[in-house]
């Protein structure tokens, strides 16, 4: 009968029908009630390759030399399917699968990197790299610190950025209690550059439409060179050609010092004689440089006072430096609104040497 178990026959044994039926035919697959029964029955004789069937779980087992292995459900995987980024798969035999590399166009596996400077688009940042970047960002000055056009960021203490809001028009940056601050400058005294001219082969030029908003005017010049000795340039105010320029001029020439009133040396009365004559030796130290103040030029109640000084190297053959100092009144009550640098002699021109210029300034 099935389940009789195992019998070891000896040489010379005569098998009965029952034994053949029971031990051979009926036990091609040994049938046991459960694994315990199988263990009991086969104790000491179990061998690799034996096949058994357990009634308790209706499963066929094969002894593989070390254990009984159930074979009832083996082989139920019939296909390995994959989708990107997994590649490979199959329906039979050895099946291989892999993960393709990731890119900006493809999901996949990525390599980690601690770098905070790489520009790779295939590496992935580690927490180490992210923290490095985070630490830098956390230590940076936030752009939200500024709120208004013109705001300035400064340090109110070590490692402490602070905002300095834009100041008002004409305010200047100064230091108050050790930190930057906008402050309003004391009124008066400041010079404003009104205009700059760099004459080149000029026969004359004019500053016109001068604002009356300043207190004084200052004309400065340097590097002026005439194209020949016979040419002279002077200054004329408001294009006024009357005998209204009363000057007292002191000038040093060589080793001598001289003085001239209006109408005297080079002080033609209808002009201010500042741009001189015989200024034709090239070289900056030979050119005419100087200044002329026009005080309270915008007043309309009294004559204007002027003073100036200038120097140049006399190129007429006297071969020495001339130094001029002039005090003058312009006996006109109207405000000065134009300054002409006009040629009063000769046909030569005026040029500025390197770095020179003629500038008109207004003093508040």
């Amino acid at each position, binding site marked *: 009968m099935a389940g009789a178990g195992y019998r070891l026959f000896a040489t010379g044994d005569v098998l009965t029908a029952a034994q053949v039926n029971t031990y051979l035919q009926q036990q091609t697959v040994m049938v046991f009630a459960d694994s315990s029964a199988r263990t009991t029955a086969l104790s000491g004789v179990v061998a690799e390759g034996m096949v058994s069937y357990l009634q308790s779980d209706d499963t066929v087992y094969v002894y593989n030399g070390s254990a009984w292995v159930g074979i009832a459900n083996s082989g139920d995987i019939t296909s390995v399917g994959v989708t990107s980024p997994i590649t490979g798969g199959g329906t039979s035999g050895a099946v291989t699968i892999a993960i393709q590399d990731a890119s900006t166009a493809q999901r996949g596996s990525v390599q980690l990197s601690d770098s905070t400077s790489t520009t790779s688009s295939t590496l992935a940042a580690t927490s180490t790299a992210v923290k490095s970047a985070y630490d830098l960002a956390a230590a940076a000055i936030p752009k939200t610190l500024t709120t208004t056009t013109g705001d300035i960021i400064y340090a109110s203490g070590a490692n402490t950025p602070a905002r300095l809001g834009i100041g008002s028009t004409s305010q200047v940056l100064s230091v108050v209690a050790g930190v930057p601050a906008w402050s309003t400058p004391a009124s008066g005294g400041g010079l404003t550059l*009104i205009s700059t001219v760099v004459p080149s082969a000029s026969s*004359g*030029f004019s500053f*016109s439409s001068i604002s009356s908003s300043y207190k004084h005017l200052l004309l400065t010049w340097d590097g002026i060179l005439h194209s020949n000795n016979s040419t002279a340039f002077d200054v004329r105010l408001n294009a006024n050609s009357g005998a209204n320029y009363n000057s007292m001029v002191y000038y040093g020439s060589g080793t001598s010092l001289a003085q001239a009133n209006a109408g*005297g040396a080079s002080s033609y009365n209808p002009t201010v004689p500042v741009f001189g004559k015989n200024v034709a030796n090239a070289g900056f130290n030979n050119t005419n440089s100087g200044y002329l103040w026009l005080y309270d030029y915008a007043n309309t109640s009294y004559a204007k006072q002027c003073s100036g000084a200038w120097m140049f190297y006399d190129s007429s053959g006297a071969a020495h430096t001339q130094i001029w100092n002039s005090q003058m009144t312009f006996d006109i009550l109207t405000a000065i609104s134009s300054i002409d640098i006009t040629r009063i002699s*000769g046909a030569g021109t005026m040029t500025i040497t390197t770095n020179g210029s003629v500038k008109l300034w207004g003093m508040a």
Partner: protein
Amino acid sequence: MGYGVMKTIINCENGEIIERELSAEEIKQQTIDEKEYAKIQKVETDKLIAKQSAQEKLAALGLTDDEVRAIIGA
């Protein structure tokens, strides 16, 4: 009407720069200036000549250079 002599006008109010020829009036004034300036120059030259002459005459009288300078200046 052109006179060939150019003048640059810098408008300090708006920064505009204009290059133009001198007007007839300006040319006329320039002619006057030239003459008047020449007169002044001649006066100055005459003064220098007279000074030089005086120095020479004083020296001829036996005055030293220091004495001459004491009289007529440097």
